[in-house]
């Protein structure tokens, strides 16, 4: 079985696991406790906070640990409130959080999936409190012009949030250069475990808590600190600081090999989001005339795990709102698959994937009378 769905989640890496294990058995104190047990845990928590901060160019006290990307997005949006401006291609964690606010404007994207900063500016209203635009899209990998949008936010005096769940660990992130006030991170997207994430909160940004309880995380997120999770996130961040750039170059070469191979071998296949800046590991490809649902299942049965981008609560696939937002028809959206690469993948796996995709698409097209 080869895994090509790293945008869904990643395995916990060995160095991350190693960093976490003692924090579940030996250093088990409550980081808020006064005694030595608590202080030992607190030390690990603070070290992790410095590592995460370093990965995104923040100060340690600007990092709030959360249960993951979804909570970080909820905290950013619901903790700010008011009228929000966002885009049509956001993750459901952002879209559903925005739906809880007073009002929301969803700005469209172009056929590559890129939002026009001018459209964000035109959506500004006197009651606008926050602009939320994802840094990189989960389905397409397309990178948004966050710095430009953040300048608009700053001029207008509104909070700038970016959902960085699909960017952190895949591209260089520097919150100061981006100019954002809030930035969401998820651990399991880059080899830390599920159940831990962080929200960068720029010093001076007003934010109401959405979890209520004790005085944890400087009163911004109540709940006993998940020290093992935070340490895992910190270690994963440190790995990205040390190894990220080399790994990203390697992944980009593999991704390009995959795209070139598929486009050469499979007639009438197209890269969705082509022409836009993209994360180095993500490729979303459309195969004319076939349904992505049997293609995904057939690939899984052949031993290749890929994604169609969107699933409903039963686990059935449904047309992605991202793909329809870039102008694809329902049918085209359903004929698209996402391939997302990661540390375990190599050239031999990519070549095997190309063979499997070519064979499966050919098989499905033979069955489709409409495809001539």
């Amino acid at each position, binding site marked *: 079985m080869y895994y090509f769905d790293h945008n869904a989640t990643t395995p916990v890496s060995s160095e991350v696991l190693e960093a976490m294990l003692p924090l579940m058995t030996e250093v088990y104190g409550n980081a808020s406790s006064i005694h030595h047990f608590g202080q030992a845990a607190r030390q690990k928590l603070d070290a992790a906070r410095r590592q995460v901060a370093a990965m995104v160019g923040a100060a340690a006290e600007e990092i709030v640990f959360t249960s993951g990307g979804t909570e970080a997005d909820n905290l950013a949006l619901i903790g700010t409130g008011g009228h929000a401006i966002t885009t049509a291609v956001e993750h459901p964690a952002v879209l559903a959080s925005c739906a809880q606010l007073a009002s929301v404007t969803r700005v469209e994207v172009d056929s590559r999936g890129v939002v026009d900063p001018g459209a964000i500016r035109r959506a500004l209203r006197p009651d606008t409190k926050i602009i939320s635009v994802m840094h990189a899209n989960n389905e397409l990998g397309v990178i948004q012009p966050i710095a430009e949008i953040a300048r608009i936010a700053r001029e207008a005096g509104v909070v700038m949030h970016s959902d960085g769940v699909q960017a952190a660990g895949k591209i260089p992130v520097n919150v100061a250069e981006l100019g954002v006030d809030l930035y969401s991170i998820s651990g399991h997207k880059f080899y830390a475990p599920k159940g831990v994430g962080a929200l960068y909160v720029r010093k001076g940004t007003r934010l109401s808590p959405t979890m209520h309880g004790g005085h944890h995380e400087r009163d911004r997120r109540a709940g006993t600190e998940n020290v093992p999770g935070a340490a895992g996130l910190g270690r994963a961040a440190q790995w990205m600081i040390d190894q990220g750039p080399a790994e990203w170059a390697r992944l980009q070469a593999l991704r390009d090999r995959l795209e070139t191979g598929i486009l050469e071998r499979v007639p009438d296949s197209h890269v969705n989001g082509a022409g836009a800046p993209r994360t180095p590991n993500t490729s979303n490809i459309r195969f004319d005339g076939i349904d992505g*649902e049997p293609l995904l*299942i057939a690939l*899984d049965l052949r031993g290749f795990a890929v994604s169609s981008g969107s699933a409903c*609560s039963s686990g*059935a696939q449904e047309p992605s709102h991202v793909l329809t937002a870039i102008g694809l028809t329902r049918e085209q959206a359903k004929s698209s698959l996402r391939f997302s690469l990661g540390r375990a993948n190599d050239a031999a796996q990519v070549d095997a994937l190309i063979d499997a995709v070519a064979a499966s698409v050919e098989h499905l097209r033979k069955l489709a009378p409409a495809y001539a």
Partner: protein
Amino acid sequence: MPETIAVAMSGGVDSSVVAGMLHRDGKRVIGLTMQLWNQRRLPEIAAGAPTGRCCSLDDVYDARHVAQHLGIPYYVVNFEDRFERQVVKPFVDEYLAGRTPIPCTLCNNFIKFDQFLEMADGVGASRIATGHYAQIAWNPDSGRWEMRRSADRAKDQTYFLFGLTQAQLARTLFPLGGFEKPQVRQLARELAIPTAAKPDSQEICFVPNGDYAAFIDAYFREQGISPRETRGEVVTTEGRVVGEHSGVHHFTVGQRRGLGVAAREPLYVISTEPATRRVVIGRNDDLLRATMRVQDVNWISIAPPTTPVRAEIKIRNKHAAAAATIAPIDQMRVEVHFDQPQRAVTPGQGAVFYSGDLVLGGGWIQ
């Protein structure tokens, strides 16, 4: 690579046992659950509905649980678009056209033995298996796939399967056709199927409490269709107007309740007239018909006949098949002459032709 069989898993006991039996017999099995209808739609009719609703998350959970127990690959596949287009919309349209449709047959014809077969093809499964109670066998003499009623007469589902073509039958397995239901429950326990004690489902899957009219009313509201468009007069067989009704879809031929008309003798719906939206009521004797026309006939166990054929014919699922002569009109249509007039021959229902256990074929009552 060995042959792969795709099992349509609903989460119920029958299809779970099918997957378990085939797996036990060493077949390469994959489980697929068809997501047919989004239960979040029309929430007003789902309220208080019992379990076993089509495509409920509970059923998907059960099917997945069984697949995990067996250790077979399992996927949920999304057929919602086609189900609405080819089952739900025709179901609603048929009611409005004064007929009483059978969505299960439409689903079998267009979803379970069509789109599902395509999906099986797509994922590399050469055959499909379902938990239907019916039997399929190849007859080398006639060169046809034959269908017979299931060993368990009470569970027999051949009435809903008359649309299956030879090509579909060639690729379909009904492993439960030879079993009695208690044996299937026993098999479920032997195979340690986690849902062995789950009750059977009863109603049309997307109409949770069996109230078709309420479903159609809710569907109209969702689609922005005014209920006024379905209202009309209640008239007697002589044409006398005796009242008004709240929608033709509330009535089916032979129905006695809910007419809202007082009379000395029991009155029944004799027919509904789509053009005028009138509901015609009359006496029980007015419901008797000695002949009927059947269209879109599909011949299963015999080749399309050119001369009259004797058969026993079921005109609804719970009908005790009645002796009749079938006179072919053309390839797709026949005229049926019952030996004894039959009560409530209902346009839109299926007419299924039997010779003993053998299913000769069937079609739609005109």
